[in-house]
């Protein structure tokens, strides 16, 4: 990112402030949503959606992923494949593979 001109950075700063405001608003929204009368499935879905939006904002703008080199995008895509596998491992434990019971 060494090729940025001063004006570039100034417009970046505006974006950072917008992202900051969005993150603050989404934090309030996610807390408010938790007080709504939702089923636990709906609540989990909504909370994870909001967290994912917030996380993407941080990654895209603060971490500059939106204008980052392809190599890093590739590393992260592979990471997320493994991450999702990791998330699904626990559910395997709840299938009765050999019909013990």
């Amino acid at each position, binding site marked *: *990112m*060494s090729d*940025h001109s*001063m004006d570039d*950075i*100034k417009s*970046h*700063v505006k974006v*950072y*402030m917008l*992202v*900051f405001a969005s*993150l*603050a608003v989404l*934090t*309030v929204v*996610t*807390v408010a*949503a*938790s007080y709504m009368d939702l089923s*636990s499935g709906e*609540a*989990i879905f909504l*909370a*994870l959606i*909001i*967290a994912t939006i*917030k*996380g993407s904002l*941080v*990654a895209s703008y*603060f*971490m500059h992923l939106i204008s980052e*080199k392809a*190599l*890093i995008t590739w*590393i*992260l895509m*592979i*990471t*997320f494949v*493994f*991450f999702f596998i*990791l*998330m699904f*491992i*626990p*559910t395997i*434990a*709840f299938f009765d593979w050999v019909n013990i019971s």
Partner: protein
Amino acid sequence: MEIPYTVEERPDTGLINSKLGIWLFLASEVMLFGGLFSAYVFLRLGAPDGAFHEWGQELNVPLATLNTLILISSSVTMVMSWASLKMNDFKKFKMYMGITLLCSVGFLVIKYIEYTSKFHHGIFPSTNTFMAIYFTLTGLHGLHIIGGMIVNGFLMGPGSKMWKTEPEHFTNRIEIAGLYWHFVDLVWIFLFPVLYLL
């Protein structure tokens, strides 16, 4: 021996070495926290119906919301400290980095208040599986905050001498430290709803 490609991009990767390095490290961090998130799912599925939610009611949502806002603010000031260097404003860099460090201290103070109030009420990691994963996840995250504070403190203090001799290299160091700091913020963005709200 000097570290190569701290300012110039390496031709084959198109990146400075430190940036590739930090992203690979962060990828490993995703898996470290991922393993614990996976443990959370496992424990939640294994707990009696609704018990996990019930056990989580002991946590202080207003304090955690405040902490979320503090951490988000520190992410903004961190990126602003980098932007200040890009605009050749060393004083502003120091100011923003200072605020970032203050926010980190604030976060840890609130975390300390939360932890001690749990202990006073006789709630420990051994109380139930929710508290076990709560203390593990927030404890590991807290250690990451402390690690970031050490690096940021160094870069604001003695490490900032580099600005006079190698400004571009120093600016890159701030960007790399920032990437780590934003990651710590990102982890909290997921920890907060998962532990406090669900």
